[in-house]
């Protein structure tokens, strides 16, 4: 029986052994997995990088491929039986880890209050789904086992299994960094992924994972790759602006709806909204999976003709890629209150109102949490370190956190503070910048 072969731009060939892993092909053919073809990996980053059209399906396949490679390596260098016993669940987890994502991946989550991890778990546990049936056919406890491995709070399985899938250096990140780099064309995000996969080893009675010190430079390269990708792609101001616009639009529709106005919602969204708090358990999995990117785009197109002027205008802006301009607010006067910008917002609102813009829709604050600008975070306390929270290399027989082993990483991995950026219509930008500068000036004056 021949292998099932996929062409992939990152790995060239991804092969699945039909004899050993035929069930993986069945899983891949499930409608819930095929749905991932219709979810952009990077949300609306294609508004900034036209090539960023890759999907969650290609990523999930890539993650499965990397999981297979790392398990083959671990099988060679450690207790092979232990690895074999965990193999099926880990391959399934790799393929299904994003199964609960909604339209446009992470960015749409706040619009509908979605937690994709909860939905992934729900899709796998739901007896009516194809993926549940395929897993259950393999082994009755496999659906629960895979769901437990996806659940970040679940510690039923050994740390090394969770760490391979979700940690500071896992197969998910190894795939998406390089894939996102390739498809955006950003040119960053390169590192010696093969060395990372083929040097990882067990530590502490084979429960924890570490790297030999010879892998330190590959780890450093990986951390820098993340740093560059965050700076250039994931937090790009144009992308963030469209994300803020999308959120504002959905919030507006929600407000209108709650005040009894007709928002012309398409049927599946109407049903979703009718539930007080739609989440697994209160909203059917099959219905949730019907909310797709084309559902959202069709809804936005409906809104572009809505009688609410702001909603219609923002919908048009989104569809025509007519975004807002980003403005940096002045620094907060009190460093303990990073959200308090004093007079900035009220003054900015005055400018907007004078120009006929409604601040709630045309003054969009975008908070970027410090941790999203930090390429790697490690636990300082050696006693509390594990493969899940810290990348460690073995030096003189002891695991040492990479940040401690390579102090030069300090500048890149120091925790940055949360930042807030504002998005306003382009015609307001210069006035907003002047306002920010004036407040900065008066703050400096007050300090001196």
């Amino acid at each position: 029986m021949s292998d099932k072969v996929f062409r992939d731009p990152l790995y060239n060939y991804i092969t699945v052994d039909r004899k050993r892993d035929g069930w993986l092909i069945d899983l891949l053919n499930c409608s819930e997995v095929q749905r991932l073809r219709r979810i952009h990996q990077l949300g609306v980053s294609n508004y900034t990088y036209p090539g960023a059209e890759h999907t969650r399906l290609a990523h999930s396949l890539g993650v499965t491929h990397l999981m297979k490679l790392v398990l083959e390596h671990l099988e060679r260098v450690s207790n092979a039986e232990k690895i074999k016993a965990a193999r099926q669940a880990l391959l399934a987890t790799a393929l299904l880890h994003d199964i609960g994502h909604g339209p446009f991946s992470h960015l749409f989550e706040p619009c509908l209050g979605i937690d994709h991890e909860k939905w992934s778990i729900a899709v796998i546990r739901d007896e009516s789904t194809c993926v549940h049936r395929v897993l259950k056919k393999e082994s009755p406890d496999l659906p629960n086992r895979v769901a437990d491995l996806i659940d970040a709070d679940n510690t039923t399985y050994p740390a090394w299994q969770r760490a391979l899938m979700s940690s500071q250096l896992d197969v998910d990140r190894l795939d998406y960094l390089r894939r996102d780099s390739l498809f955006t064309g950003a040119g960053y995000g390169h590192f010696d992924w093969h060395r990372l996969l083929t040097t990882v080893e067990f530590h502490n009675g084979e429960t924890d994972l570490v790297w030999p010190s010879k892998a330190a430079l590959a780890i450093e390269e990986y951390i820098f790759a993340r740093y560059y990708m965050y700076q250039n792609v994931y937090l790009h101001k144009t992308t963030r602006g469209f994300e803020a616009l999308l959120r504002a639009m959905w919030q507006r529709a929600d407000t209108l709806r709650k005040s009894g106005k007709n928002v012309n919602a398409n049927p599946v969204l109407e049903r979703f909204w009718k539930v007080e708090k739609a989440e697994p358990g209160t909203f059917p999995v099959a219905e949730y999976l019907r909310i797709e990117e084309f559902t959202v785009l069709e809804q936005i197109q409906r809104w572009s003709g809505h009688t609410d002027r702001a909603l219609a205008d923002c919908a048009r802006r989104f569809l025509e890629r007519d975004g807002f301009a980003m403005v940096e607010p002045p620094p907060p006067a009190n460093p303990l209150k990073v959200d308090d910008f004093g007079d900035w917002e009220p003054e900015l609102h005055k400018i907007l109102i004078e120009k006929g813009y409604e601040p709630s829709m045309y003054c969009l604050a975008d908070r970027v949490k410090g941790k999203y600008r930090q390429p790697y975070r490690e636990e300082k306390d050696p006693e509390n370190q594990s493969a899940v929270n810290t990348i460690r290399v073995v030096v003189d027989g002891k695991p040492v956190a990479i940040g401690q082993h390579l102090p030069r990483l300090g500048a890149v991995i120091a925790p940055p503070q949360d930042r807030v950026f504002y998005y306003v219509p382009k015609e307001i930008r210069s006035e907003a910048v002047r306002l920010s500068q004036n407040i900065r000036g008066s703050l400096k004056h007050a300090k001196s």
Partner: protein
Amino acid sequence: MDRLQLATLLSWAGEGGLQGRKRLQKVVFLLQTAGCPLGCRYTLHHFGPYSRDVAEACDELVAAGLVEESGGPKSNSMTYSYSLTPATRRLLDAGVDPVVQGFENLGRELIAEDLWQLELGSTIQYFYGQEEVWNQALKRACEFKRVDPNDESSQRALTLAQRVHANGRQAGADH
């Protein structure tokens, strides 16, 4: 947990500062149990409940120069210590977080508590969150920590967990 909330909590530790990241982790966990809305997500780790949010909030305050960190492996010490800088104390004079401040008495008590009691007590509380039966939670926590549930020390930790939990129920009822 935002900067002001953590700075308010650290102000209760006084000039000597709060001793140990593990202590900080458990104090925040138990304060949350008692109803203090710090919003940190916890999972079960080596020594009981552990939160990346707490570790990150603390490291961010240190990186911003608002909290002084001492100790740690570089100083040949296993324990880090965290204290507010004089400038941060002055900022707090202008106003602490009023909601967190409402938990000052319990917070001071927890900060001064024996570390083992905090570890085991918070682990019991963690399992109680899953089991809702104290004996079962004690049994699981003691299995996890590899100690005898009938030890005096384990019983004291159970009392601590129950007391903090009752505080939380009271806080919930007050709201």
